[in-house]
C-alpha cells in the first residue's frame, strides 16, 4: 500500500522521446493546427508556435498572472496548462480582444485610467479582467481587488487597474 511519491524516479534515458502530438485550437477565432511535445505549455505554444507574443511569460509558475488567457471563456494561467490537454479548445489572447480595429472597452479603459506603467503585466491583466466581468461575481472595489489578486503589477498600478475595470463594468469608482 505505497502511495505514489516523487521518489519513484525513472532513469532519464529510459523514457523514449515521444512523438509530437497534433493539437487543434481555435485561437482568436482562427483555427490552428499544431504539433507539440507533451511538455509544451499553452503559453509556449501561443508564443513560439503561433507567434502570439502578446501573452507574457512572467514567473512561469502560476504566481504572477502575466500569462493569463481565456480558454473556453474562462481565465487560466497558460504557463501551467499543457497544450496537448486543450485539444479542441477555444483560446482568446490579448491579440483577440479588439474587434475590427476597435479597442475592447477594457483596453480603452486601461488607457483612460493610465492603468499600466511598463505594460508587461497588462495583457494578463486585460484577459483576467475580461474573465472577471464575464464571471459577474465582483461588484465592489474590494471584490475586484480580491478576484484580480492573481495578477501582479510590479509597477504598482493597482488603483488605476481597479478604476479601469470599474469603468468597463459601468460602475462609478
Amino acid at each position, binding site marked *: *500500500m*505505497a*502511495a*505514489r*511519491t*516523487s*521518489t*519513484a*524516479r*525513472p532513469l*532519464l534515458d*529510459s*523514457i*523514449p*522521446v*515521444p512523438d509530437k*502530438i497534433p493539437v487543434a485550437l481555435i485561437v482568436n477565432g482562427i483555427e490552428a493546427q499544431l504539433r507539440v511535445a*507533451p*511538455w509544451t*505549455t499553452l503559453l509556449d505554444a501561443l508564443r513560439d508556435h503561433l507567434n502570439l507574443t502578446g501573452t507574457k511569460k512572467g514567473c*512561469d*509558475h*502560476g504566481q504572477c*498572472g502575466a500569462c*493569463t488567457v481565456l480558454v473556453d471563456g*474562462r*481565465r*487560466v*494561467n497558460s504557463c*501551467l*496548462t*499543457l497544450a*496537448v*490537454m486543450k485539444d479542441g479548445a477555444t483560446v482568446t489572447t490579448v491579440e483577440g480582444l479588439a474587434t475590427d480595429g476597435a479597442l475592447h472597452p477594457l483596453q480603452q479603459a486601461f488607457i483612460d485610467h493610465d492603468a499600466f506603467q511598463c505594460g508587461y503585466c497588462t495583457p494578463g491583466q486585460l484577459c*483576467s479582467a475580461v*474573465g*472577471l466581468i464575464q*464571471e459577474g*461575481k465582483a461588484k*465592489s472595489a*474590494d*471584490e475586484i*481587488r*480580491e*478576484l*484580480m*489578486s*492573481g*495578477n501582479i503589477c510590479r509597477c504598482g498600478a493597482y488603483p488605476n487597474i481597479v478604476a479601469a475595470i470599474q469603468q468597463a463594468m459601468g460602475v462609478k469608482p
Partner: protein
Amino acid sequence: MINFQYARATDVADAVRQIAADPTAKFIAGGTNLIDLMKDDVERPSRLIDISRLPLKTVEQTADGGLRIGALVPNSDLAYHPLVEQRYPMLASAILAGASQQLRNMASTGGNLLQRTRCLYFYDTVTRCNKREPGSGCSAITGINRMSGILGTSEACIATHPSDMCVALAALEAKVRVVGPAGERLIAFANFHRLPGNTPQFDTNLRSNEIITAIELPAQGFASNYSYLKIRDRLSYAFALVSVAAALELEGDVIKEARLALGGVAHKPWRDTEAEAALRGQAANPEAFSHAADVLLRDAKGYAHNSFKIDLARRAIIRTLTQAARGTPQSQSNKRIR
C-alpha cells in the same frame, strides 16, 4: 521539465488500469501543482495520464440529504455552486480564500486534496528533504521554518498541507470516494491525509493504483453559524500561516454541536474532536472558545521562526468561533477582521 509520455484515460476503469500498469506514471487534471513541481524537477513522472475529460464534473444531492461533488469539478465552480453557497457556505468561503481565480478555474476538487506541501525545502532540490528524498534529512527543522507546522510534526518532517478547501472539508466530515482495481471505497476525511511520522514521502492514504472520483458531504452544512478565517503574510493570494474553519449548531446560547479545524499548522488539515467535545454543551462565550483553543493547542510545538503561530492560532480560533457564534462569517473580499 523532463521528458515524459502523455496518454488520455477514456473512463475511470481505464484510468485505474493505466496507473496500475506504470508505477512512475501520474494522473493530471488541473495540473496547477503538478506542472509547477515538474518544472522545478521535484516531480518526475515518466507518463502523465490525462483524466481531465472523464465525466466526474457534476455536483448532485445524495439520498441522505448530502452532496456528492465530482472529483473534476473546478474549485471555482464548486465555490459558486448554488447548493454549496446555500448549504455549505463554509466550504465556499474556504475555497475562495485560496489561490487566485485563474488557478481556481483550473484546479480540480480531487487535485486540491492531493496538492503537495509548499515547504521551501521540498521545492529546492539542492537541499535535504525527507518528503522529496526519503532519508536525506529535514532542512526546515533547522532552517527557515516560518511556514512550517506546529502540530503533529516529526523529527523527519515539519511540512504543512497547503489547502484551504480541505480544512473546511475536514470540519464538515466529508468522505472521499476512490476507485481502484479491487473496486470502490469511501475514506473518511480524517483518515485521508496522514501525519509525517518516519515516512513523510506519503501525504495521504490513497493507494498508488487508486483514483479519487468524488467528495461526499453529509447533510449537516452549518450554514447559519460558521466562519473561515485565514491569516497570511499578505491580504490575498498567499498560503496560510494559520487558518481556522469553525462551525456551530446553537440552541439559544448553548453549543449543541461544534466543528473546529485548522490549516497551515500541520501535515494534514488539523481537526480536533477533543476541542469540539470541550465546546459541546457550553455557552457560546469567550471563556468556552478560549478553553477549546487551549485544548486544541495542548501539544503545539514551535520552531525557531514559527513559535508565534501558537499564539496566533489561539487568537484565530477564538475570533473564528466568535464570528461563527454571531453569524457574521469572515468576508473573503473585505479583509477587515471583526
